[in-house]
């Protein structure tokens, strides 16, 4: 994907409606060591292929989504509400 995003709440919508944050990483626990925070804030696997990332349907339902997308083909595999995914705090 990258022309249209299949928002689980609104259906397929043009990319222009979304804000992209980047890799959907789990935020470390408050007491996690410094290198865990370094990995979270700065280091990226940057895979060629399957990639989980945060997209915000800014001009739509305003939900944060976790989009599973192939960075080489741009094909979307899944698109879920961030609050309901493992990447989100709930899980």
């Amino acid at each position, binding site marked *: *994907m*990258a*022309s*249209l995003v299949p928002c689980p709440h609104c259906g*397929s919508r*043009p990319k222009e409606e979304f*804000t992209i*944050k980047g890799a*959907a990483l789990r*935020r*470390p626990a*408050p*007491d*996690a060591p*410094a290198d865990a*925070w370094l990995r*979270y*804030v*700065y280091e990226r696997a940057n895979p060629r292929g399957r990639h989980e990332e*945060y997209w*915000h349907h*800014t001009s739509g339902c*305003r*939900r*944060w989504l*976790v989009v599973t997308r192939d960075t080489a*083909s*741009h*094909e*979307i595999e899944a698109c879920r*509400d*961030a*609050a*309901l995914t493992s*990447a*989100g*705090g*709930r899980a």
Partner: protein
Amino acid sequence: MTSYRLASGGLVDRQSSLRFSFDGRSFAGYSGDSLASALLANGQRLAGRSFKYHRPRGILTAGAAEPNALVTVGRGGRTEPNTRATMQELYDGLEARSQNRWPSLGFDIGSLNGLLSPFLGAGFYYKTFMWPAHLWERLYEPFVRRAAGLGRATYEADPDTYEKCWAHCDLLVVGAGATGLAAALAAGRAGARVVLVDEHPIPGGGLLSDSATIDGIAAPDFARQAVAELATMPNVEVLVRTTAFGWYDDNVFGAVERVQKNIRQPSASAPVERLWRIVARRALLATGAEERPLVFGGNDRPGVMMASAARAYLNRYGVAFGRTAGVFTTNDAGYALARDLEAAGVDVAAVVDTRADTNFAWTGKARVIPGAFVSDALGGKSLSGIRVWKDGATETIAVDALAMSGGFNPVIHLACHRGGKPVWSDEHAAFLAPPRLKGLALAGAAAGRAGIAVCLEDGVAAAASILSELGFAARPAKLGEVAGDIVAGPTPPVWRVPGVTGKAFVDFQNDVTSKDIGLAVQEGYGHVELAKRYTTNGMATDQGKLSNVNAIGLLAEARGVSPAEIGTTTFRPFYTPVSFGALTGAAHGHHFQPARKSPLHGWAARHGARFVETGLWYRSSWFPRAGETTWRESVDREARNVRQNVGLCDVSMLGKIELCGADVAEFLNRVYCNAFAKLPVGKARYGLMLREDGMIFDDGTTSRIGESRFYMTTTTALAAGVMNHLEFCAQALWPELDVQLSSVTDEWAQMAVAGPKSRLVLQKIVDDDISNDAFPFLAAREVSLFGGQLHGRLFRISFSGELAYELAVPAGYGESVGDALMEAGQEHGIQPYGVEALTVLRIEKGHITHSEINGTVVPADLGLGRMVSSAKPDFIGKHMLSREGLTATDRPQLVGVEPLDPRTSFRSGAHILAKGAAATLENDQGYVTSSCFSPHVGSTIGLALVKRGAERHGEEILVWNGLRGEFTPGRLRDPVFLDPEGERLHA
């Protein structure tokens, strides 16, 4: 000039004659003509000049691939360079001018380059023009730039309008030839949402130029009938004059519709072009095939034309491309043309067929020469004859026109836009589309098939399989019986013609010859991509539609490999060039971006506000009064009046967010670096948000207006960013917290009422007691106004450092409340003040904005280190703050700056140097983040971020502005210039 228009035939309307001009000469044509067909009909062969050698060029094609006949049409703001005469519909009053020639098309000085051609081979410019170095820009390059380029664009603004549109469909069919029409009919009849696009004004594609019949109906009439049926289907949309130019992710296609390019004076009530974004569940490319030129000497001479083009001019436009024609072909297409030419009474001197074993049953008059080649086209600005080479012997035949056909390249352009690589097929002697494309199929000639009957079948079959995938029941379609179709099947390609003496062109527009391709290989640029870049083959406005495959063939020969091993260069949008106008639509001028207006905009306008763009907002900047000649006078007055009496400022554009839920206090505690958990109801608190990397993100005040209801204000600049961030925190990071967010920026008109007399003014409209005891600093409560007529929210907060309040009322009431405050404040000298005065007031108090919060500062840098809670286990940004670089002593810190001599001044963006230090980057101490003239201090003052600034108060420095040549001795000091104890605040 004698006419080449045939007495009859063609799809032009001979009843409606159109006048047009070319290079100032007036001509006549018919409705239904293209500019090219009209020029040919008038015997005007010379249509343009080539890019490098300025060779005379005629019309080579009848379609989108035209490399030669590029003209400039229109005038003034409607001037359109590089228009393909073959695609430009003729209209009455059309003005066309030839390009890239001086002084005239007939006599072009630039053609002297041709004489120098031995020294201007591929890449020659990489090897010279280097000495002496300074002469490249001064002498060589200006010459190169003038010589290069094609048409001249206008500097005038475009008077016409453009539009964009989205369409959603089950099936998009690109190309309305036999294949596309058959597919669209099948899908339309099955009830699918269908969009059929075709770049020509009349659907039909090749059918329009064919002399075959289908069920006894002439091919063009068959097309007309098919289109008529499609028009009756509510689920089918046929877009003519519409070019699909790109295939993008998720089967989104870009297409451009030329709504009014066939009219001299476009109607102002419609766009000239419309951009379509077509979202297709499935797409079918029925884009046909492009005929392949043959590479022989002088193959660019005016009078030499593609065979399919000659046939189109003959059958579709009723124009003969010559009087005595020759045909040079590798396949049976040449015979189809020869047959039709003779039927129309045009002499065909010879059909030169490269196949020694041709078994075509030719029954016409023309002499057929098998196993022969046209080695050279002879003549000057116009063709006079051809030299035919057969088994080493040559003979010259007099012709005034030559048609060539080197086989066919399926038009697979769009199919390759998403990374798939074309595959060479020996069977088809051509490159075919990449296999296994998602959501996209090809059929007919685009899939390498030939013949009307086959294409009709293929279109129906392709549609049927797509329909079944989508769950539509396809009805069996009856196919017509085709008669009189000469099918040009695949034949072995001919890359290099024997016996050539003259220049043999591969890329016509860019003057790339077969020799240049050889030179590229010889010099190590043999990779197809390097050869392209080194020779510029395929980089002209036709993007190699005619030249690429021949170049690949020649590379393959030179390297002794198959075209399969060479591969193609990358196909990319745009299939044909698309205008800025179409891609912009209506979003230009003042609509480039939307305008956002405060609910107090009208109020401010009535008080004479000067507005300034701030993001998308229009903010009142200052309010000039009669007699004030400079903005500074107004701003000084407004600022003074706030400190002396009272001022009213529109702060509605601050971001405002309402937070509801049981866990909001905890939530705020995590998003702000300072403590919020225990904020009591009825109180406001200043908060600092960090990014996860520890840098300050934004600041603002948040008030608790109920046990589980908070009202947050953000800066104007980051209002949207903060909302997105909070939603991220609430939804992605901590969904377990009960927090709900609603942006109320537009719900409330918010006014800052600031100054020693602000309470007196407010109390006149506020019903509640707002005395210092009842409503102390940082109080935040709902209040009743005008005796209960209205309720608003009142906050005792101050950006100016004065006794001040911010009053929020429902937006619709904003103006009347603003008026009421002005009326109530009259006796106290109230005046509106704008963002400029606001800036003065905040700088005097050392208050920060995003001038200081520049994305690279941590709280301690701004003297706010104490705000960072050490007690909280977690908040956004906590964990990165402790890095060595963020706690180092040499970090920039916020200070005030003042000039040593109050009569001197400095500006924001000036840098700070230690006194007496040399002006070098190494000595750079920091820079002035904000500055203004302070009417209260009586001089320019500023805030700055300076290395170790906090410990340097009192140090004399130089405010260095080399950019403006301003060097101001100054002194660092505490950033608070006024009322350091904050007594006025608590008055």
